[in-house]
């Protein structure tokens, strides 16, 4: 087992107290911060995301893994900044207007962060104009993620995409949609760029979208 394997294993098992010292040890041993990030932390999150997509991992296991990764990332951050490393992409996420459900949205946020994205979470009950304002004020946003859990709030996903279009911002961002009642057919109907069935798949799709 290499130190990178140990880091990866600790993230997979959600052992956040183990991860930070292991990452520090890896740095002390002179390993490249980006290699620690990609081969130790991100690869573990990818693995847990795939297990989740196969129904072999459960939400709490994803959460503790994400927190463990976050503990490791905190140690790495100054070293990554020093090395001039850029995030994989930038995303903004929120549950649409009228919908208070956040667990699915939070999971997607964590999984996308786990892929090396910088994510801004606008929270729940987010009006279309809030998404628009955020994109206007942050011209480096690559991806907008909107979710809804209720059939009655699903139309707000379409309203959000329309608002982004009307503000002349649609070409600047990719829009990902999700939530229990949301389907590929619905995503096509409202003009989204992507729909995925779960948080693990969403993270993989986000990378695909920014890398073209």
């Amino acid at each position, binding site marked *: 087992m290499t130190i990178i394997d140990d880091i990866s294993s600790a993230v997979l098992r959600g052992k956040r107290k183990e991860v930070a010292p292991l990452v520090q040890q890896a740095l002390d041993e002179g390993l490249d911060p980006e290699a620690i990030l990609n081969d130790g932390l991100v690869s573990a999150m990818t693995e847990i995301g795939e297990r989740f997509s196969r129904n072999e991992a*459960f939400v709490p296991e994803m959460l503790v893994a994400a927190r463990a990764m976050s503990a490791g990332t905190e140690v790495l951050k100054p070293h990554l900044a020093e090395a001039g490393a850029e995030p994989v992409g930038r995303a903004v996420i929120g549950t649409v207007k009228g919908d208070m459900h956040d667990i699915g949205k939070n999971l997607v946020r964590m999984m996308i962060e786990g892929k090396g994205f910088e994510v801004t979470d606008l929270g729940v009950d987010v009006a279309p104009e809030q998404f628009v304002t955020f994109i206007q004020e942050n011209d480096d946003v690559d991806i907008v993620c909107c979710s809804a859990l209720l059939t009655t709030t699903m139309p707000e996903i379409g309203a959000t995409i329309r608002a982004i279009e009307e503000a002349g911002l649609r070409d600047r961002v990719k829009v990902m949609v999700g939530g229990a009642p949301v389907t590929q057919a619905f995503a096509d109907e409202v003009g989204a760029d992507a729909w995925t069935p779960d948080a693990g798949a969403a993270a993989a799709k986000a990378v695909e979208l920014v890398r073209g």
Partner: protein
Amino acid sequence: MEMTPRENMMAILEGRQPEWYGDFQSAVEIMMDPIWKSDSVARDGLEHKDSWGTVCVFPPDAPGKHPHVTADNAVVTDVTKWREQLVIPSLDGLDWSEAEARAASVDRSERFVEYFNAQGLFERSHFLMGMEEAFCAYLEEPEAMFEMLTAIADYKKRSIKEAARRLKPDVIFFQDDWGSKQNLFLPPDVWREMIKPLQTEIAQVIHECGMIYVHHADCICEPIVEDMAEIGIDIWQGVIPQNDIVAIQEKTGGKLAMIGGIDGPAIDAPDTPEADIVAEVHRCIDTYCPAGRFFPGAPAPLLRVRNGEILNAELERYGRQWAAEHPVA
């Protein structure tokens, strides 16, 4: 003479010939008791605290209240300190008179008196801590979490006994959503370790009080269905078709009666054609009723009135036709 709704639902539950197949819940009168009232919040989209101190919001167009727990308003911020942070509501001094009068007015030959017990152990744990913190606590601080769940279970048992004394309900509707549309929330082993033993104690109290135990969980529960039967759940209400219901019927050997089967969100768009709703009712009845002890219905009420009316009308019509054409052997 035609069966009463209660007799008909008991026939399905006991595997006898009913006159129609339909939703068990259509034969109950739900009591609005003082415990439920104290946990209810206004349907105004604003933040309100329930009797446990959890901040909840009930948007006007939503099907129910929703906890809105943040780092700033969580009741329990550290599960290892739950004894200091949590005040369990008192059951003393509640006014049961309205619920008692309502229970007394129900013709029990026609319908069941149903006691609604909201937010079971799992739901209450995340209402108190927020979902993310609670989920992590189940894995990271299992002993403290189990102690807190035990205290919640003690409250539940006391509330059930009090409701039994006051209302003599025929049925309890015990609500605890253990999963999502994709899977159980907790890993099955964690659920078995933390929830199952306490839920078994609750089920024993329910049965000692003479109630039929209806457990609401409109989510995936497939990994734990045998445990649910073992606990003593009489009817699982809210079975969504993302569970393999036919496989569950085989796996549990008929021990676990079920209510649900309709894919509600799939037929709840404003422009869902009537034919699609009718077809979904037929699919549900044709697929799940042959195994017996199955009550077809929407796992959760449809949110659009028109769609709900079409669904109920076809359930009534086709459920009756199917019963006549498929006599119980």
